[in-house]
């Protein structure tokens, strides 16, 4: 696999001690991408394990789902918080939108792996085609994320009546709409904080991914990789993009399902 994709830049004139060998039979760029992703796994794991830890420190909502109201006394049921879809107002569609987002990201991962496969074959047209589809998937996902955040911040029409300590240090009881870092209508303050930080950090990764995808798409289209003699860049950015999908799989399970 790596034999035909990484036989680049390694001149036979360079000896074993002069950079002429490939540790672990992977090129420098791919190896470093893997180690970067390993460090990123730890960052995301720290976020998600913190989520689990804070979550088990609150009681779960125990009553019947139909009578659910948001409160900072217990953790909300995710499917009752994330139950809206764009363009249709007031329809209870639990997890439909976020399920769609998951499918979009998985689909863009599939088109990415097809682009990598085309890169192995030096097929410029196929690389460009699949990179474009991946780009479309990435941008669609980000747009969905923006809508999801917007809806989460603005909240429902009813809001929830909560007793909490406001920014001035006063203990108040009032109806809260939507979410901010201090208080939210869905659950404890940490619920919204974790939502913003974890999906935000993931969204930030997706944004960087989209920039990289565009770069690869552009360079492939103008023939940079043809002149360079290999399509390894598609592979490296592909690793990053799959990682973003991998993280989302865990975010989806921990945030929306459990």
């Amino acid at each position, binding site marked *: 696999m790596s034999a035909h994709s990484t036989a680049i830049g390694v001149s036979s004139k360079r000896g074993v001690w002069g950079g002429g060998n490939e540790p*672990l039979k992977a090129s420098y760029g791919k190896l470093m991408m893997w180690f970067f992703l*390993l460090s990123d796994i730890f960052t995301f794991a720290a976020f998600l394990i913190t989520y689990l*830890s804070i979550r088990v*420190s*609150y009681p779960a909502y125990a009553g019947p789902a139909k009578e659910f109201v948001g409160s900072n006394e217990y953790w909300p049921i995710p499917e009752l918080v994330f139950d809206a879809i764009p363009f249709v107002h007031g329809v209870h569609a639990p997890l439909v939108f976020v399920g769609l987002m998951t499918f979009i990201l998985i689909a863009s991962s599939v088109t*990415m792996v097809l682009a990598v496969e085309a890169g192995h*074959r030096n097929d410029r047209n196929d690389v460009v085609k699949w990179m474009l589809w991946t780009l479309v998937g990435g941008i669609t996902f980000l747009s969905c994320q923006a809508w999801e955040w917007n809806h989460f911040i603005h909240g429902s029409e009813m809001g929830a009546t909560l007793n909490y300590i406001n920014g001035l240090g006063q203990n108040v009881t009032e109806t809260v709409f939507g979410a901010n870092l201090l208080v939210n209508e869905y659950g404890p303050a940490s619920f919204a904080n974790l939502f913003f930080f974890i999906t935000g950090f993931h969204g930030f990764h997706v944004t960087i991914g989209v920039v990289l995808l565009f770069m690869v798409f552009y360079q492939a289209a103008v023939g940079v990789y*043809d002149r360079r003699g290999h399509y390894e860049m598609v592979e490296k950015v592909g690793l990053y993009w799959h990682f973003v999908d991998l993280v989302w799989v865990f975010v989806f399970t921990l945030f929306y399902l459990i």
Partner: protein
Amino acid sequence: MEIQENKSTLTVVPKNNDKIKKIWKTALILALITGAEFIMAFTMPRGILLYSLFMALTIWKAKYIMMEFMHLGDEVKPLIYSILVPIAFLFWLIIVLLKEGSEIFSLRWY
């Protein structure tokens, strides 16, 4: 100066349909697992059994993404282990922080 002709100088290798079939098969498996999780979220009672099943299915999906899509399965063994073995440290963190969270739960609510 002559404008460089924008034409491929590399020889295009013909498609290997088996490889492409395998990619789509993996995609189908991922979609089916996600669909199953979706159905389970609405049909099964919430509890430790459901959560364990969700985690198992998620790790199963992660395995497909890493091994097939990221081609980790095609790399040499030392590379596979240098990525997978450090992740084992996370199990310790999960156990410790779950324990810590439940201790806070008992302190706060009882």
